[in-house]
Every structure is written in structure tokens, then in C-alpha cells.
């Protein structure tokens, strides 16, 4: 598959004034995004998502490593003509109307006047701002500014769309509209790369995801494979277990249900060994069932864990 984004060993170190302190915001991130994919970039606040995105659009220069989009350098004129970008919590000129703002961007892209007007009207209707197009942006709510931001990111009919927290500031109806919009972009053959910490949106939309934490890639791959990686078995055992069971390889958790049943949560790959051990110990196994990890659990587990190497999951 053709790489729309190729990031290799990307690092960014920020220095505080007079170089008294250095902060490594992104620590050797590597991933690729293929044509036509919806790619989710997940991570808690401060994970390095926005810094990575800014390096992808040329706002920040990497300290080391390499980022390429559409086969070229981020920020290059011919590349940015084919890219749409929505920054996090976008802000625009107070005294301009959305039509004037989009007209300026259309002029920068070199879109002819008639086509510009047609696209601006169409996009403002698409993002639900058809009735507000003659109001100055100063009077817009956060959600309305987010919609203007989405409209400007699509003005040049881009091949690659990078969205930093696109659902931020939107009400549930707005979120649903943006989700539908992103899904329709995929149907048009566009590639969408978006960062979010709203897991439901990622689960609904993305083909592949990267989970970033403290500047490092913790998980990368298809969503299905990522979640399968966390597949577990739940084993219910009659009676009480000795303390040593909790420390056994593959046992994630041990807890009591009522006074007479113990529940073991076991990694799928270790289930056979644990069951054999339970039988050898002559314990009565009441039930064995599958338990698939949710994206939320995976995310929390990632965010709560110490430094680990990136796990690439095939799929």
C-alpha cells in the first residue's frame, strides 16, 4: 500500500529559555499510514500527539528522525496544496466572516473565483453553518469555530486530511455529524489521520491506530488485532485460592465473588497452563469464558504502564 504518511524515528526536544531544561516531547516515533485509511492517533493529554501532528504539517521541525507526507517534505508548497489540516481548538480572525476567511484560503490555494464561491457555500452548508456565513467569527461559539476549522481543512479537496481532536468542543449531534463526515471522506478515497482521546470515535471510525504515551508508540496496528492482543479468559473456580496464584504467569487479576467463588482473569495464551494447574490442584472449575479487552481498557492500561517498547501488531 502506498504510504501517505511515513514517520521514522521522529524526535522532538524542546528547550526552555536559556536552555535550562529540556523536554523530550516525542521520542523516536515510527509508523506509516496507507492511502484510503482512517488512522487514529490515540493518547492521553501530553502524550505528544499534537507535537507529532505539527511536525507532519511543518509547523515544528523535528530534532531528529524523518517525517514524510504524500512522499514529500512537510511544509513544502506542492505537498501542502494536497493536504487539509485542522489544528486543535482552532482560532480565526475576529473581524472576518467565515466566507471571507475561506475566500482568503481559497485565494492562497489558487482556486478560481467562481469555483471558490461554490465550494465555500457547499462546505459551510456541509458543516451546518449555512445560516451563519455572514456573521463575524468573533461571535462564534467554540463548536462553531470547530466547524469552520473543518470546512477550511476540506476547501482544497485534499488527498490527505490531518485532524487534531476534530470532535473537541462539539455537542453530541455535532460529533455524530463529524463522524459521518469522516466516514464519507473515506468513501471518497481520502486518507484521514486524526488524533483523539475519545475512544468511542476511534473505535467507530479507524482502520488502524497508534497509541502514544509519553512520546513513545505503545501500540500500533489494526484495531481488531490490538483488541485481540488483549483477549483474555475468565475462569470461575469454587473455593478460595492460595496467594501464589495471583503471581502466576499470565494471571492478570484474581478476585472473590461472594464468599465461595474465585474469579481469575487470564491472558488467552496462558489459559491452558492455568487450567491444567487448577485441575492438578484438584480445584473445581465452574466456568471458562472469553473476555475481550475494550479499547478503553487497553488505553487505560497503556496510560498507566511504565515505559515499554512499541508493540507492532500485525493485521
Amino acid at each position, binding site marked *: 500500500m502506498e504510504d501517505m504518511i511515513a514517520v521514522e524515528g521522529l524526535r522532538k526536544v524542546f528547550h526552555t529559555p536559556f536552555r535550562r531544561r529540556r523536554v523530550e516531547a516525542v521520542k523516536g516515533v515510527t509508523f506509516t499510514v496507507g492511502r484510503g485509511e482512517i488512522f487514529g492517533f490515540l493518547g492521553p493529554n501530553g502524550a505528544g500527539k499534537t507535537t507529532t501532528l505539527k511536525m507532519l504539517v511543518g509547523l515544528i521541525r523535528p530534532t531528529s528522525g524523518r517525517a514524510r507526507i504524500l512522499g514529500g517534505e512537510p511544509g513544502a508548497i506542492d505537498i501542502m*496544496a494536497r*493536504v487539509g489540516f485542522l489544528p486543535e481548538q482552532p482560532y480565526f480572525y475576529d473581524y472576518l466572516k467565515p466566507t471571507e476567511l475561506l475566500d482568503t484560503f481559497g485565494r*492562497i490555494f489558487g482556486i478560481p473565483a467562481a469555483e471558490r464561491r461554490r465550494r465555500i457555500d457547499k462546505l459551510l452548508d456541509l458543516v451546518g453553518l449555512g445560516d451563519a456565513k455572514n456573521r463575524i467569527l468573533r461571535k462564534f461559539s467554540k463548536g462553531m469555530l470547530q466547524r469552520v476549522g473543518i470546512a477550511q481543512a476540506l476547501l482544497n479537496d485534499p488527498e490527505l486530511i490531518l485532524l487534531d481532536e476534530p470532535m473537541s468542543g462539539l455537542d453530541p449531534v455535532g460529533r455524530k455529524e463529524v463522524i459521518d463526515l469522516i466516514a464519507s471522506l473515506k468513501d471518497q478515497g481520502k486518507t484521514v489521520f486524526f488524533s483523539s482521546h475519545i475512544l468511542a470515535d476511534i473505535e467507530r471510525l479507524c482502520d488502524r491506530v497508534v497509541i502514544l504515551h509519553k512520546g513513545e508508540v505503545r501500540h500500533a496496528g489494526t484495531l481488531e488485532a490490538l483488541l485481540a492482543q488483549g483477549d483474555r479468559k475468565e475462569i470461575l473456580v469454587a473455593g478460595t485460592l492460595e496467594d501464589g496464584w495471583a503471581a502466576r504467569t499470565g494471571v492478570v487479576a484474581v478476585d472473590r465473588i461472594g464468599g465461595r467463588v474465585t474469579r481469575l482473569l487470564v491472558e488467552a495464551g496462558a489459559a491452558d497452563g492455568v487450567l491444567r494447574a487448577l485441575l492438578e490442584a484438584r480445584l473445581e472449575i465452574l466456568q471458562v469464558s472469553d473476555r475481550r479487552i475494550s479499547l478503553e481498557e487497553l488505553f487505560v492500561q497503556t496510560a498507566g504502564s511504565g515505559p515499554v517498547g512499541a508493540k507492532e501488531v500485525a493485521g
Partner: protein
Amino acid sequence: MKNLLGSPRRVAAIARNTFIEASRNRAFIGLGIAAMGLVASSMAISGLAIADQMARVLVDFGLFSIAILEVVIAVTMGVILVYKEIDRKTFYVILTKPIRRSEVLAGKFFGLAAVLAIALALMSVAWIGSLALRGVPIPHDIAQALVLTWLQAVLVTSVALFFSSFASPILSGVFTLGIYLAGTTLYVLEDLLTARKGVLVTNDAARAVARTALTILPDLSVFNLGKELILGIPIGWDYVAASGVYCLGWCLLFWGLAALIFERRDFA
């Protein structure tokens, strides 16, 4: 010109945007009101002058007021507009479009130059109107003097844009005003250097500092021809054209330096 400034289309788009945004800004409207107030005060001051000095005061104070207000607009807008774009992160959207950072700076500069031209036109109408109301004859070369005033403000704008490409708004404002004050009084240094006595004649180090200042600072006194206007000394359009070239040279230098800094800047 295309290679020098980038794409005229993209520069024009930013200039147009800057002009619309700045002209609707309340700060600009406030400055317009201040301009009218100054013109009114020049009329009041002229009332205090001796009868035969009234025309001189009206011409002198009026042109001075317009020049000062143009510089105030140049400094405030030049410093605030770039700072606001960085602070409010509107640059994130602009700089991720197919446009060079140097083109954005050039567009900002031309947009502000247009704002200064409109402000000058409005103040000039009010000033000439006040002269006519008092029955003061309109000075012959008033148009040339006003164009020179605009050129000075345009040069100050390029200085403000240069400083605001790397410094905080307060520092940018202070540095720009410093350059303006030094630039308007540079002719005094020149006089002292050619004098027969004084510290600049006897002290080598002081003379070297003065010569350096004359080399690295723009001489803004070339744009201030209030005296010539009052005394009826002709100001030729060839002089205005030469001053325009001088202004353009300095603007290109400051824009080039600002672009160099801006190109390397991270927008974190």
C-alpha cells in the same frame, strides 16, 4: 519580483486579509477618533498663536500630528497583528496552507501599508479641511509631504514586523520606537560628526559609534519635510521617488531578516 517575494497571488491574499481584519479592528477605529481629536486640537492651538503665525502653526502641527499618528498605527498594528496571530494560533491555519512564511510576512506588510494609506487619506482630508475652514492657503507641495509621511510609517512598519518575528510585543514596541526616535534624530549625529569641535571630533571611540549608528539605522529625517512645506521650499517628485527607493531598500532588508528568523521558528 516573483522570485524575491514569492507568489504575488498568495501575498495579495494575505495582504487583503490583513487589511480587512485591521480596518475592522476597534483599535484602528480608536486611532481614527484620536486622529480627528488631534486635528481639532491643532485648530484650538492655532487659536492661541499670534495672528500671522496661525497658518504656520496649523500646517506644522497638522503634519506633525499626522506623522506621529501614522507611526503609532504602524508600531501598534505591526507589533500586535503578528503577536496576535502567534498567541491565538491563527498562524497554525495559515502556515499549513501552500504558502511560504516569507510570503505571509510580505502580505502582512502590504496589508498594513494599505491600512496606513487609508488612515493617511482620512487624516489628510480632515487636516486640509481644517486649513480651508481657517482660510489658510493650502501649501503647494502638500501631496509630496504626505506621501513622505506615509513612506516613513511604512518603513517603521517593516521594523515592527521584524522585531515581532522574534520578540514579545512590549519589547518589539520598545525596540521599534527606539529605532524611530534614533532614526528621526540621526541628522544631529551627522552634524556633530562634521562639526569643528565636540566629543565626536576628539574621541575616536565615540566617532566610531556614531558612524556605525549612521550606517545601521535608517535616517528617517529624509521623510520629514515640514519646514520646507512651511517655508514654501519646493519638494520635487524626484525627491519623493528617491525617498521611496530608500524606504524600499530598508523595508526589503527588515523583511529579509524577519523572513530568515520566521523560517526557522517552531510554532509549538
